[in-house]
């Protein structure tokens, strides 16, 4: 493993229909190439960060957190000149921001939340310059690639405008927190911009930073990215024209390749290592604390919980008149309480207990379900109705220190007014900023992914239908292997192309499966 280069600007497929690889694949590829750390910066969100962090951690890779944030007031994204035929639509530029500290992560979360709350149409929100100024602490700003404000200013109004944009970023984020980013994808105009960026960095005494603006793990995934571009722009592959990538250079590169590529830009590659060492924040360092439950004077949450559980044990097991069972229940409860105290979850259990108590007092049917039924504490608190001691259920299925996971207690509530009454209680008891509703975002599954990926092909829709058939018949684990075997067997020249297309289609299908976004809305 080498630490000569860190990729600090990568987009996953969670940059919806822009990135061509799943976060896990990027992490695995980084591991293969010996890259010790990787920063994922998806468009206007952290959607893939958790998955990326998990896989990166398993592979011993440091997962930096960041996001590309759309910003108004810094011009529009780069598009081909007007005298060339193209279908590009005007979009605000995106600022690449990395979280240096936990405060930076919190600020970036709040920044994104703020403009998302303002947006009237999906994917059209953008942060205002005043938002940036307010939430700039703890963030490191890169000037970005072709989606960034520097490229846009350079191409629109020349070097002076580019310098003005960078100066503005410096004023917002501070002298030491702005890096002038250079990418080399073997494009002529990009090289012209790079030379201008180098001059600007020198004149403003800003550090250079080499990145590859990664959009996919390997060069072959460019085809998937092209496919997604076509879907995003509601067009067919053969009609997409300049919407598609110029070449396949936006993949993860090994350190030696990047060093060779940027050998004439002193410090650009070295600065990636230096910046990576500065970025101390990772998702494992969220510092999250479960909310505290208000307890009476002289009590701690743990002691208060122990008393409520003891009362519950007497209430639950007393009437059963089984001394042995009661003894075992007390032992189990003591063991669980010890673990809860150790992991600091007492407040969480008390809050759930509080909600259950309220519902019972208010005549609202409520029932805990799922793995929480394995907990004697939950049974004693009357969160669940199954006796885990009597039924000899395994507590570790619910909570285990070795798993390093947080407890998850699901409560079933009746729909309509009663449910709303319980929600209102939670809002009033814990405050509007202390309670939130979450919602699942649908993800692609076999058939829907195949259908959407098939649209840009148009002429091979019949093949897409065939996929749908396969997705039904090959839902097992061997699916990938079977596909590889089927599509990578070249025959004549024509069949080589067919198999190549089919392979890309299959890759797009597989990449799009599980992406948390609603493509149907886009269509």
């Amino acid at each position, binding site marked *: 493993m080498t630490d000569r280069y860190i990729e600090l600007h990568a987009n996953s497929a969670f940059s919806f229909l822009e990135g061509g690889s799943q976060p896990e694949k990027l992490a695995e590829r980084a591991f293969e190439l010996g890259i010790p750390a990787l920063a994922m910066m998806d468009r206007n969100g952290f959607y893939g960060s958790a998955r990326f962090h998990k896989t990166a951690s398993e592979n011993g890779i440091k997962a930096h957190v960041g996001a590309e944030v759309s910003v108004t007031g810094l011009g529009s994204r780069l598009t081909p*000149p*007007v*005298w*060339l*035929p*193209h*279908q590009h639509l005007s979009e605000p530029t995106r600022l690449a921001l990395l979280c240096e500290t936990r405060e930076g992560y919190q600020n970036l979360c709040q920044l994104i939340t703020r403009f998302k709350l303002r947006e009237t149409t999906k994917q059209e929100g953008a942060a205002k310059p005043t938002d940036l100024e307010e939430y700039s602490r703890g963030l490191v700003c890169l000037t970005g690639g072709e989606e960034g404000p520097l490229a846009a200013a350079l191409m629109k109004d020349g070097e002076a405008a580019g310098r003005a944009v960078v100066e503005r970023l410096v004023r917002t984020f501070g002298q030491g927190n702005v890096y002038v980013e250079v990418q080399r*994808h*073997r*494009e*002529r105009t990009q*090289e012209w911009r790079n030379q201008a960026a180098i001059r600007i960095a020198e004149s403003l005494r800003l550090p250079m930073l080499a990145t590859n603006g990664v959009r996919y793990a390997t060069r072959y995934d460019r*085809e998937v990215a*092209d496919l997604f571009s076509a879907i995003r722009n509601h067009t067919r*592959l*053969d009609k997409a*024209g*300049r919407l*598609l990538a*110029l*070449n*396949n*250079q936006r993949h993860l590169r090994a350190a030696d390749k990047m060093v060779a590529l940027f050998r004439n830009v002193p410090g650009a590659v070295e600065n990636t290592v230096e910046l990576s060492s500065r970025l101390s924040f990772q998702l494992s360092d969220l510092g999250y604390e479960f909310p505290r439950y208000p307890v009476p004077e002289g009590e701690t949450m743990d002691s208060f919980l122990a008393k409520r559980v003891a009362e519950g044990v007497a209430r639950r097991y007393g009437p059963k008149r089984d001394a042995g069972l009661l003894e075992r229940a007390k032992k189990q409860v003591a063991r669980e309480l010890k673990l809860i105290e150790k992991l600091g979850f007492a407040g969480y259990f008390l809050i759930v207990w509080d909600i259950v108590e309220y519902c019972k007092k208010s005549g609202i049917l409520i029932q805990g379900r799922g793995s929480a039924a394995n907990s004697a504490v939950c049974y004693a608190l009357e969160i669940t109705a199954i006796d885990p001691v009597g039924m000899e259920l395994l507590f570790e299925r619910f909570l285990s220190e070795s798993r390093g996971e947080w407890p998850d207690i699901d409560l079933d509530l009746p729909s309509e007014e009663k449910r709303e009454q319980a929600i209102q209680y939670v809002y009033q008891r814990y405050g509007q900023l202390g309670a939130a509703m979450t919602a699942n975002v649908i993800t692609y599954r076999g058939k829907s992914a195949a259908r959407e990926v098939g649209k840009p*092909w148009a002429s091979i829709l019949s093949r897409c239908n065939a996929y749908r058939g396969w997705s039904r018949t090959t839902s097992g684990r061997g699916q990938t292997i079977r596909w590889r075997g089927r599509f990578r067997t070249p025959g004549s*020249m*024509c069949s080589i*192309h067919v198999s*190549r*297309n089919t392979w*890309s289609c299959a890759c797009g299908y597989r990449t799009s499966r599980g992406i948390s976004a609603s493509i149907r809305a886009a269509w």
Partner: protein
Amino acid sequence: MCGKHVGRIAQVGWGHDEPSIGTLRLHLRPELHDKPCVVLEGEPPTETVCALNTRARLLGLRRGMTKVEVETFENVMVLQRSLRIEASVRTVLLECAGAFSPRIEDRSVDGLFVCMADVAGTEGLFGPPLMLAKQMRQRVRSVSIVASVTIGSNAPTTVRLARGLGGGIPLRVVPRGEEAKALGPLPVTVLDVTEAQAETFLTWGIRSVAAVAALPEKSLIARLGQDAKRLLQLAHGKHPYLMQPIDVPFVLEEQAELDSPLDDLESLLFGLSTMLEQLTVRARSRVLALASVTITLRLDGGGSHERTVNPRVPTNEKKLWLKLLQLELANHPPNASILGVHLYAEPGVTSKVQLGLFSPQLPEPGRLDVTLAKITAIVGDGNVGMAVLDDTRRIGDFHVEPFSITTAEPPSPTTTPLFGLRLLRPAERTRVEIRHGQPREIYFRSRCYVAETVYGPWLKGGDWWNESIWGNEQWDVVGRTIDNALLVCRLSHDFILKDWRVAGLYD
């Protein structure tokens, strides 16, 4: 209703018993107007005459005669009935009526084309009723059909008079209140009587409409029933009628079936001339011109051959259209004998493009079209027009679009390049020696250049989803020969075809 509220109804029909089918069939055959013609219908060998023109009738031919009987007459032109042609000509006639009123109704019966138009309130536009009738007749005549026109205030009366039952008067205006007088001499059968009623009238000795009108209403109803009231109203010219206007689509279409398979395009043009004239007359009547004409030839063997001609500006010049069609068909001849012709035209506005007052005089659009068509015939389709860049990353991809007149200035790139790049078209093939992944020696125009400075490669690739997959890298190279000759060029390496070329020279 029509009579009372509308005031006047015009009927367009044919003179006395001249068959409408024959007229429709002869629509595009003006050369046959002076010859005795009959139209046969039915399956061979039981074909019978369903229509004939006046000259044929004068020879003694009658409807219902068999083909064998017709063949006993000399110099009689025999045509087969074509429902498709009749339908298209019916549309043309409705369109003619539509030029005088938006409210028209097709009242064709028994192979006779009758159209009713509500012309109330058109005096200001077309003058008094007689003048209107003349214009209507003239209009129908312009599409080579003879018609009789009757104008009146009671629809059933007018229809009966226009159907020629009154003696084939080509133009007739029936003043309000004189309907009964006009109908009076006609036979009782024009009142659509049943067989039983006709027999009853015959036994009573009543043969004319006037005689029916003179009968007392109550006595007649007592003998013939309630239908007698309708008969009396018809006879008095007071039968009410509710007009049901139709919407006639404006379709510029002409169709002709050839008597025998045709191989000679020159002969075809003769027929096309008539068809184009009809189209232009119809377009002109709506202050439109023909923007494009699609000709579909029905070929021997069941195939068809379709070509479309699009001049720069819409025009109604028949000669120009003929010339363009001739060139198009000469350029793309049909591969079998022609059995039928179908013309379909798209209408366009006749407005001219306004150029500057002091702009130089441009050649006539028609002449330009003919010239372009001639050039197309030489260089082929898709090679005449203006080059337009394609929306693709591949360098040099363009397509040819037809010329169009634009007054807007073309946008120009804002940046001024420091160097001038002279692109070589086509790029010149060269041989390149590679060292350490970079061009080292270039053999160009019989000389060997050693690369001093190399920039690149610039990579491009696309169309990976089909057979036209492409990919190339470009290098900017400064090279010198042994005798110090300088070469600053752009090298292009197609790594699909493994081909090196000098794509351009820097000045």
